[in-house]
């Protein structure tokens, strides 16, 4: 991807056998990094990729000579320009940070002080290190804003952090990192929290800034497709060890290690179910003209803030309906309305031909049993004080009146259904991994013996490989139990692989509904096309070749 002649070759950073350990609450010592070694050459962008807990952020922070609270360096060296960062004292480390090595965080919104103007925070680095005087630092910042294609670069610095969008603040954080002309920039998942359409703008801005300056960077991410666009080399990590390292083209094109292959296979284009492959045999769940929102009711009977605005759909028995859209489009609210957690202001919700009351408290036990909701974050969806057995067992007692041994047997059966060993019913949620928790979450919903499952982004918080397994499980369960899914997601790939039909939402309104196989058909709504084209692919040239209608982007993307 070298467009600009780089002075590559010289080694800037050399990490040798780096070990980091952490002490847990109970006093046990765990090794987070188990001897990691690699080099970063001047002018290259190196990507660290791996799932949560693989140690990628720990490595990135060690480049700033920083270990998170509870962690400490227990061996190895981090040589930056020949100086071992680990042996430096705190004063010398401070001189290094922001000056020679800078950091772009995952959540820029959380790293800006909400009560100070953006410009004052961006130029702070220059003041602290005495690099530039205030006026020239401002000029330089405005130049950076321009090169990161931020709107109105002259005045955006006079705003407060809450007055800019998520994509903009991420680029402003990058400007802050670049102000001191650092020799190395560490990007820590800077686009993970953004919507796909926004992510493209930010990625483009980062890429051109990197190329213009011939920057050296370390880019941490869990998303192989994003990394493929921006990096020269990729290091694949798992459990604190390097699995594979190589040039981007090699890793993406011909991965050698089985783990990398598993990561890549999760990206393979899915075969969408052919339209009409299964006959519609009557709607199990139907919603008509639903309006719902938050805040007090206005005089016209509508809520103050409308989140779902006149949405109608019908979910066929045994089918899956995917709801996609970006954050704030009302897709999760729609699920909460269906579950009765947020009573609709108007409109009808029909389950099995019977009208449901809007509030959950007004619905009968039988109506509630037929429709179960599964939440996105399994960490908070499971009561941390109850064992798995009690969590799954409660719906059995509640809906089916099971007790004692019958209940225990059923719990074991449900665990088996979600491919978990029976012994797990004695565990507490914190003793499970993210993927296991999501399975328990699913088992609890299945315990009610429902007809409809309302799934709220249930794979979004999971690592790629784990998410693929959960999706596979969902498909099997659908076949076995004849379930119907209302599946909310922001990821068009996930929806396409699981669902028969797809509904696209924007700004609380339904834009269109179509058969999953027809996603790429010509007749799609322009926003659907934009969404579909915004998802990065493994092709390293994808970002450069991407052509999107700027008019469309302006209209729909929140960048």
């Amino acid at each position, binding site marked *: 991807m070298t467009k600009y002649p780089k002075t590559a070759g010289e080694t800037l950073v050399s990490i040798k056998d780096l070990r980091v350990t952490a002490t847990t*609450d109970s*006093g046990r010592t765990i090794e987070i990094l188990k001897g990691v070694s690699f080099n970063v050459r001047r002018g290259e962008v190196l990507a660290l990729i791996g799932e949560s807990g693989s140690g990628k952020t720990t490595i990135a922070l060690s480049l700033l000579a920083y270990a998170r609270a509870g962690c400490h360096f227990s061996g190895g060296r981090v040589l930056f320009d020949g100086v071992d960062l680990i042996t430096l004292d705190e004063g010398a480390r401070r001189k290094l940070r922001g000056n020679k090595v800078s950091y772009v965080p995952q959540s820029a919104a959380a790293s800006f002080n909400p009560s100070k103007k953006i410009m004052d925070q961006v130029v702070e680095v220059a003041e602290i290190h005495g690099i530039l005087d205030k006026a020239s630092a401002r000029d330089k910042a405005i130049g950076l804003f321009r090169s990161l294609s931020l709107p109105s670069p002259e005045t955006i610095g006079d705003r407060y952090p809450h007055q800019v969008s998520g994509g903009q603040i991420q680029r402003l954080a990058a400007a802050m990192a670049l102000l001191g002309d650092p020799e190395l920039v560490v990007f820590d998942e800077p686009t993970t929290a953004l919507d796909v359409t926004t992510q493209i703008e930010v990625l483009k801005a980062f890429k051109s800034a990197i190329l213009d300056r011939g920057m050296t960077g370390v880019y941490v991410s869990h998303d192989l497709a994003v990394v493929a666009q921006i990096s020269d080399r990729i290091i694949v990590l798992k459990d604190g060890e390097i699995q594979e390292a190589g040039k981007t083209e090699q890793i993406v094109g011909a991965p050698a290690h089985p783990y990398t292959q598993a990561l890549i296979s999760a990206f393979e284009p899915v075969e969408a179910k052919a339209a009409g492959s299964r006959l519609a045999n009557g709607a199990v769940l139907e919603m008509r003209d639903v309006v719902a929102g938050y805040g007090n009711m206005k005089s016209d009977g509508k809520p103050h803030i409308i989140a779902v605005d006149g949405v109608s759909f019908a979910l066929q028995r045994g089918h899956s309906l995917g709801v996609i859209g970006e954050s704030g489009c009302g897709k999760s609210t729609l699920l909460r309305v269906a579950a009765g957690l947020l009573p609709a202001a108007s409109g009808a919700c029909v389950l099995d031909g019977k009208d449901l009351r809007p509030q*959950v*408290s007004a619905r009968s036990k039988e109506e*509630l049993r037929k429709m179960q*909701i599964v939440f996105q974050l399994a960490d908070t*969806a499971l009561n941390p004080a109850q064992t798995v057995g009690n969590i799954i067992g409660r719906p059995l007692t509640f809906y089916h009146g099971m007790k004692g041994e019958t209940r225990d047997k059923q719990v074991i059966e449900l665990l088996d259904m979600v491919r978990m060993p029976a*012994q797990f019913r*004695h565990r507490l949620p914190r003793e499970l991994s993210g993927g296991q928790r999501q399975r328990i979450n699913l088992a609890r919903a299945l315990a009610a013996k429902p007809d409809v499952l309302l799934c709220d982004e249930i794979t979004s918080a999971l690592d790629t490989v784990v998410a693929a397994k959960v999706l596979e499980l969902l498909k099997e369960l659908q076949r076995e139990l004849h379930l119907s899914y209302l599946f909310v997601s922001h990821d068009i790939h996930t929806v396409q692989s699981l669902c028969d039909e797809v509904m696209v939402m924007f700004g609380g309104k339904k834009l269109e509904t179509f058969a999953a196989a027809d996603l790429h058909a010509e007749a799609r709504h322009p926003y659907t096309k934009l969404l579909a084209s915004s998802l990065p692919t493994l092709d390293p040239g994808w970002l450069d070749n991407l052509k999107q209608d700027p008019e469309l982007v302006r209209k729909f993307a929140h960048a």
Partner: protein
Amino acid sequence: MTVSTAPRRKIRFQIRPIAAVCLLVVLFWIIVALFAPLLVHYPAGDMVSYDYFGPMSKEYWLGTDYLGRDIYSRLIVGTRYTIGIAFVGLILAALIGITLGLLAAAFGGVFDTILSRAIDTFVGIPNLLLALVIVAGGGSSIPILIGAITVIFFPGCYRFTRSMAVNVNALDFISAARARGEGHFYIMIHEILPNIAGPIMADLGLRFVHIILLLSGLSFLGLGVQPPNADWGALVRENMIGISYGSPAVVVPSLALASLALAINLLIDNLPQRIRDQLE
């Protein structure tokens, strides 16, 4: 299929030395309070020596007071009054406060607002003043003292429980329970309470110290436990002039009070990390 039994859960707490010492001190006073009748040497109200403000001796371990009564016996009996009244008052205040706090969090809305504002009015009155008013109105007897403590301390329990419970109430597993159709009481008892029990226990410990100090304050003003009986605060008050004679009669109950208050405070400050995490 083999049906396995639940393995015994190992509690992996790292116990700090200072916490262990404090726990021993607290346990010591609890045992003293429980077995007081077996430990006393003389009936607490009897004048047993002609020597007032006498020094520590073989017969009178901790000396004698301003009427020649045995301080050791009076201290032991005083422990019963101090810890007993404070404990019963705390339990009552906690029962009322925790129940109302959970109700407010689970029901929310107007109910929560009205209850919270109503209870806020109690918080506006200084503790000692409210105690003085209650005791002045009802006379000083042990049930009145316990009632005063309950009235004064339940708003704090309520506010603490409510603030913790509201946080838990916003989590997804509560939404999941509500979507399942569970009632408010199931959610209060089974979903919310187990998650906030640790911090609440720690908070109650601190409140216990406050109660003991308030009770001693009342007794010091002469409104607490009435003669010939005395709790620790009353012991300090009646022997106050003894301080100029260097008598142990005033120092010993003060030390007892300080040791218990300090021990409970330090114990809670040094609780295992897992409970402390929940507290923050």
